[in-house]
């Protein structure tokens, strides 16, 4: 081994050890567990695909998995669509000397704990919450609306709010990197402001949009705090089931199987996005 290689190895070894102990090992354990079965109080260590068979046939797992994917997808779309105009505004309309301030303001929600923000949404969306009492006192509704708490809608609203800054920042960075003379060139070549946006600005901002999409999609699929607190029975997601399997039903192998399947789903979808990113990043 050369000195350079040795030095490089020395430099990365703390990280490697960390990754091996805290990521690779638990991951391997989860994958191994998923091929075992729970036999009342003991674990049957014969390798089997029974858990996977059950995960694919039992409708509850399929429902939860599909619901997780749907909620994550909706949250991602809502967040990215709402974040883009804000990022565009800060990048294109705000005076350069004020941009840092705007970005700073956008990150303010992060100063509060995630849990607190979820609880705050309960206060806003609840039966006697801010929204309902506000609408009631304005006479716009006769009785409190209930479709906004303890269901999937509440999960979407809460998650979209929680992840908004994460999506604004990568899109903003991508927009900032666009050479403004490209936009002038497009107008010089006959395109209006609107067609310039679709032919130049948006394609060049795509890497940021895709990064934002992944940043929201990957963690929301595995989120279990928000559905637990505001989701009610119909807003529960796959992560809640994984938690239940591990802690309440004492069925670690089944929990592990569901975790592996959730990871596979996320990986598959992420790969599609990475592929698109490659295309745009040529």
């Amino acid at each position: 081994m050369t000195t350079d290689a040795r030095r490089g190895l020395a430099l990365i070894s703390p990280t490697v050890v960390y990754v091996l102990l805290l990521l690779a090992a638990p991951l391997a354990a989860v994958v191994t567990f998923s091929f075992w079965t729970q036999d009342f109080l003991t674990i049957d260590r014969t390798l089997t695909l029974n858990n996977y068979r059950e995960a694919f046939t039992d409708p509850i797992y399929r429902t939860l998995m599909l619901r997780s994917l749907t909620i994550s997808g909706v949250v991602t779309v809502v967040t990215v669509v709402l974040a883009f105009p804000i990022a565009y505004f800060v990048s294109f309309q705000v005076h350069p000397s004020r941009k840092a301030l705007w970005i700073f303001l956008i990150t303010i929600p992060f100063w509060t704990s995630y849990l607190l923000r979820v609880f705050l949404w309960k206060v806003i969306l609840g039966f006697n919450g801010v929204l309902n009492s506000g609408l009631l006192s304005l006479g716009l509704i006769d009785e409190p609306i209930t479709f906004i708490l303890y269901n999937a809608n509440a999960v979407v609203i809460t998650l979209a709010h929680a992840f908004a800054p994460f999506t604004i920042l990568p899109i903003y960075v991508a927009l900032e990197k666009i050479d403004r003379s490209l936009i002038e060139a497009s107008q010089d070549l006959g395109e209006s402001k609107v067609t310039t946006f679709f032919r130049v600005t948006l394609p060049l901002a795509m890497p940021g949009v895709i990064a934002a999409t992944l940043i929201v999609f990957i963690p929301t699929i595995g989120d279990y705090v928000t559905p637990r607190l505001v989701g009610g029975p119909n807003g529960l997601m796959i992560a809640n089931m994984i938690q239940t399997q591990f802690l309440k039903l004492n069925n670690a192998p089944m929990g592990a199987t569901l975790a592996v399947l959730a990871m596979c789903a996320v990986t598959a979808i992420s790969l599609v996005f990475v592929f698109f990113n490659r295309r745009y990043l040529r």
Partner: protein
Amino acid sequence: MSIISLQNIEKHYGDYHALKDVSCEIAEGEFFSLLGPSGCGKTTLLRVIAGFEDVSSGTVLLGGQNMAGVPANKRPTNMVFQSYAIFPHLSVAQNVGFGLRKAKLQPAQMADAINEALEMVGLAGFGERAAHALSGGQRQRVALARALILKPKVLLLDEPLSALDKKMREQMQTELRRLQRQVGITFILVTHDQEEALIMSDRIAVMFEGEIAQVAPPQDLYRRPLTRRVGEFIGVMNFLNARQIDVSDGTVAFDIEGLGEAKVGPDQLPEGARAYLPVVGLRPEAFTIVYEDPKLRSQRIVEGEVLDLSYYGDMTYYEVKLDGASAPVTISMKNLTTRPVLERGTRTLVSWDEGSLVVFAA
């Protein structure tokens, strides 16, 4: 007929007065340059013509039509940007064909037009290349093809050669000139490089601090700069203190420091000037180091000492202190085998050409 008519253009950015009462006519098919130091407003003026900047007051006529309120995408001008502004997400062919979307061409016609444009700028066969895989010179050619394919009435070039190395720049200067003659479109070039402007242009507008100081063909600009500042900016100019001693029949007599008395005829005097600066200008080539017997020379001869010299191979530039002059003058001499390069400290005879004297209006 003038294709562009700028009438009393004023442009303010807050307190900053970027363009001051700019008026100018640019003829159809002309290669016109806006020349000036950075910050003189030349790029602002180009952007006003392109439609990227509004004017504070004044009128821009393009092909006889008032351009007030007409956005950039509706003007019959196209621009080659200083950064070239090649779309990084598109191929070379897609870049060149970018502006053709509105022309509603068949795919085959479109491909033909693109190939023709690429061929014109010497990039035949580059269509499928990715934009980021191009060199600086190639990017510029793509930018040119992309603008020329739309057959604009006026092509605007914003310092297009400043990012290229010297060899490439010289090559592109000739090529741009050739291209302009070939397509016959009016070119307006913004540059801070006076040599580039002299080489390429039919006419040059010299700008300082938002004002046009002089508009003239290259030769007139070089030989007859209107102001001292223009003379200083274009090429090398020696300035000698001069005292006006007599005026008669439109001829002015000066007593020039280090050169003696000289008469300047009416055709050499700045037009319409009532008074003249107490200084005259002489180009380095208006002086000649006298190698042969001075008696053979009919021109006027003075004496001086070589203070310094710069040897360029084909030319030598001497700094010569003329007897009785307060500052040294620059003299350029073509290097011939019969003319040995003088050393520092050599005393020499210098002849000068009275007809090359430049007088400036006060």
